[in-house]
């Protein structure tokens, strides 16, 4: 039996280390990272390029495996699971927003948003997906394919897709990285609004200080080490 998720951290990383071998040497990408995020919190991971931000996000989501250390998502040790187990856990708990949107070009905006529900075996995915697309302001563009949408619109679709499963946790990797500043600001507003409305936990990777300042907590990475923690 698991403990009530409300009482335990939704994400808990312990002594998380990632190193890769480059011939004879070992290159440390992340070194001994410890963090825990409580449900409903927002956390910004900041740092310059190559500081290990995206690697940390990949490990927290179970997209990659660490050299040592552990990650618990909603109390579950994700690295004790196999690939498919981790995928199922992601489908249940997580939503993602990526820098490069990562929409499936073969599917319409509506179908892209329906996708995670369908993968989870939800029978009637359409109403929920339409609701969310209406919420992000794309109610008129349900049948459009990604390449018929602007960058900002594509990211709105991606945000709708991230929230449609009512995830406990949304992870965003440089969500404004491919957008101009005005559109970027709108996207960030939208994400925080949805985060507030739905009480979702948010982990946001960015190099933009102004965006990170909107989160409740921040950690800064430098050369794979956590140097500052703002509580």
């Amino acid at each position, binding site marked *: 039996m698991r403990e009530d998720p409300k009482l335990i951290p939704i994400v808990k990383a312990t002594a998380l280390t990632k190193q890769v071998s480059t011939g004879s040497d070992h290159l440390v990408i992340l070194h001994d990272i410890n963090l825990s995020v409580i449900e409903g919190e927002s956390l910004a991971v900041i740092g310059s390029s190559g500081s290990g931000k995206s690697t940390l996000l990949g490990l927290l989501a179970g997209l990659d495996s660490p050299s040592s250390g552990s990650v618990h998502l909603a109390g579950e040790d994700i690295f004790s699971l196999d*690939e498919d187990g981790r995928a199922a856990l*992601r489908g249940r708990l997580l939503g993602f927003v990526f820098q*490069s949107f*990562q929409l499936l070009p*073969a*599917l319409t905006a509506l179908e892209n948003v329906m996708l*995670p529900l369908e*993968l989870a075996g939800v029978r009637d*995915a359409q109403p929920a997906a339409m609701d969310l697309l209406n919420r992000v302001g794309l109610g008129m563009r349900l049948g459009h*394919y990604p390449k018929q949408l602007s960058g900002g619109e594509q990211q709105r679709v991606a945000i709708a897709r991230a929230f449609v499963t009512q995830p406990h946790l949304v992870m965003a990797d440089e969500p404004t990285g491919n957008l101009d500043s005005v559109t970027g600001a709108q996207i960030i507003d939208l994400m925080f609004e949805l985060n507030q409305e739905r009480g979702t936990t948010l982990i946001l990777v960015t190099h933009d200080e102004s965006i990170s300042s909107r989160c409740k907590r921040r950690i800064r990475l430098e050369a794979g080490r956590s140097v500052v923690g703002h509580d």
Partner: protein
Amino acid sequence: MNILKLSFRMLKRDWRAGELRVLIFALVVAVGGMTTVGFFSDRVQLALSRQGNQLLGADLIILSDRTLPIHYQDEAKRLGLSVSSSLKFPSMASRGDISLLSEIKAVTPGYPLRGELRITEDFGGASEPVDRVAGSIPERGTVWVDDKLMARLSLKRGDEIEIGDSRLKVAARITQEPDHSIGFINLGPRILIHADDLPATGLIQQGSRIVYRLLVAGDAGVVETFREWSQSHLMMGERVEGIRDARPEIKAALDRAEKFLSLAALASVVLAAAAIALAVRRFSHRHLDGCAVMRCLGASQSTLLRLYLYHFTLLGLIASLIGCGLGLVAQEALVYWLSVLVDEELPWPSMVPAVHGLLTGMILLLGFALPPLLNLRSVPALRVLRRDIGLASGHGLTGYSIGLAALTVLFVWKAGDIRLGLSVMGGFVVAILLFGLIGFLLVRALSGMSGQGGGAWRYGLASIRRRATGSVVQSVALGLGLMALLALTLIRDDLLQNWKTSLPPDAPNRFLVNIQKDQLQPLEAFFKENAISQPLVFPMVRGRLTAINGKNIVSGDFTDTRAKRLIEREFNLSWASEMSPDNLIVKGHWWGRGDTGKAVLSVEEGIAKTVGIKVGDALTYDVAGSPFTAHVTSIRRVDWDSFRVNFFVVTPPGVLDNYPSSYITSFHLPPKQSDLMNHLIRAFPNFLVIDVASIIDQVQKVMDQVSRAVEFVFLFTLLAGFAVLYAAIASTQDERIHEAAIFRTLGAQRSQLVRSWAAEFAIIGGLAGVFAAAGASALGYAIGEYALNLSYSFNPWIWVTGLTTGVVGVTVAGLMGTRSVLSQTPLTILRKIA
């Protein structure tokens, strides 16, 4: 359920976006080619089996080239079976000045026991005459003729025709007849007469080629009992035929034709496989991101596998169904095109070839698409964050081994011959490996030259080096495609040409058989009178081989069917003092003048090998009921293509002179003098004239039509070749788009890009051309040597054509294919990539 819906949606979208164009095209062409051949041969086979019951005119037949002993008839009657008999032989039928070699069938009352004999008294020649079941056989003194004889002798009801010494009245026209010949080579006109009229014709003489038949019909079980009884009583030269053994020669010929056409269609299947492999390779690269996203969104490996399995199964089914439809239409066109060849109304085909087509399509698609798709499910989810992470490598050849195994199964199945199937596939695998290896070595060698030459060449070579694997895959696939095309065009022409030139223009075109001894003088006079140079006349004695070295032999001693036939049948022995100029002694020696009257033999090489006869063996023949034994002193090789009179077994003069003999001769009759034959037949009614000119003509016509059918199937190969070309060029298109954007952003002119790509395509095309020429030469040699027994002469044009077609074809197609890349602005492309 959702996964099924999702995969259907993705399929629809991929279809609309043109992602699957090559795949669908290749599949449709492969399945279309296979089903065309399948439907076509199915129709011919169906026509055969539909008439199968009627082919014999009975449930069982006993055949012999001698009068059948009465005990067969007695036993059949004792068992309560219906019995009738017939006697068939070729002879001349004439009316006025015109004579025609016809097939005479003399029948007794009761014929036919099975099937319908239908006749009409309407001689108007209407295509749908009012006919009726005959219910009897021709009355004495009358004949029933078929429409060919009617047309060619301009017969009306009541006209008289001459058959041998008799004049018989034409009473009816046959509209349908059991054992009517069907299929590719129709025999001469047919005449049905009452058996009692036969003696008066004087045509039944020594040496006449007559087939005696006893027809039996009745309850299936009783017929089977009779079959068993008669099989244990068969004498030499006699055999039993039921429906299952009927028309083996037509069945064998059709089987061979079907195999040949199937193999030609399989060439397009191999090409389609190459196109599919290339296209799926591109497809899986393009779907890496989508799979990573789905993994990230919680899709399990099995979900992804199911998603693509449904996707491709649906795709395969749809494309294969389209292919089947294409095959159905194309076979109708083929039947129409070959209407001269098949003068029968063919029945509508069964759906079996469609099922085979669907199976072929699915095997092909899943065999070549599944391995890369299986890999897709293991795409790392981390790719959503780091796009440089792709698939683990090492799925190349092992992955395609499933496809190759699938293709081998297809080959063995379609060729109906494990050895043939395996060796063809083995050839392809060796070719792929060899081409691949040479390709890698050449690409490496070419890379060393990249510092030389002009700018365009330098970039072209650099591109090839950068895309080494892609370039080698491209040139191997294109090489295979071009190889199949070269082999089918040039080599086929070469082999046909070799076959045709083996026959000189002044080769004898008429054979005279059944010349009696007392007719030799008058015949000589006839030739002199008509200014035709005297041909050599050969004596002929009919005998059957009964013992070798004193040991009696029966057909059951041999497994080889040709050997069995040779033992069962009578064949012709002759004598000569000089050997024919087209013969060559391969063992032993020819006799001298002093050997006249000595009981020695010279045996033809082929028959000696089949039956197992060596120099020194004593052979015993049954000649007209008495044994004749002689020793083999030589084995001869005979050039049968010369169309001269030749014999399997020859003795010196003075050995067989006292046995009953007839004579045979052959001569060249100029086409202008063909009227002369009618005079000859009138003067010598018992002669059997074999018009070899028309046989050669007919053989050539059949060859011609078979090669037209192959040409038709070749269209599919050509289309499949285009699919390979398209897929090969598309396989590097994405990289090229990216490259173009960067080059043009850096200031490269369109013409500079075009030149460097032209150089790259030319090199790949050149490699493909070299592979194709080498492969096609090897294939031509193998086909000529092992399949057709024709020597294949090396054709240097293959190299010229292969290289030129490769370089020009690939460069032009490549540049055309990349045109769209150049027409987009760099910014559009860079945005797309981002």
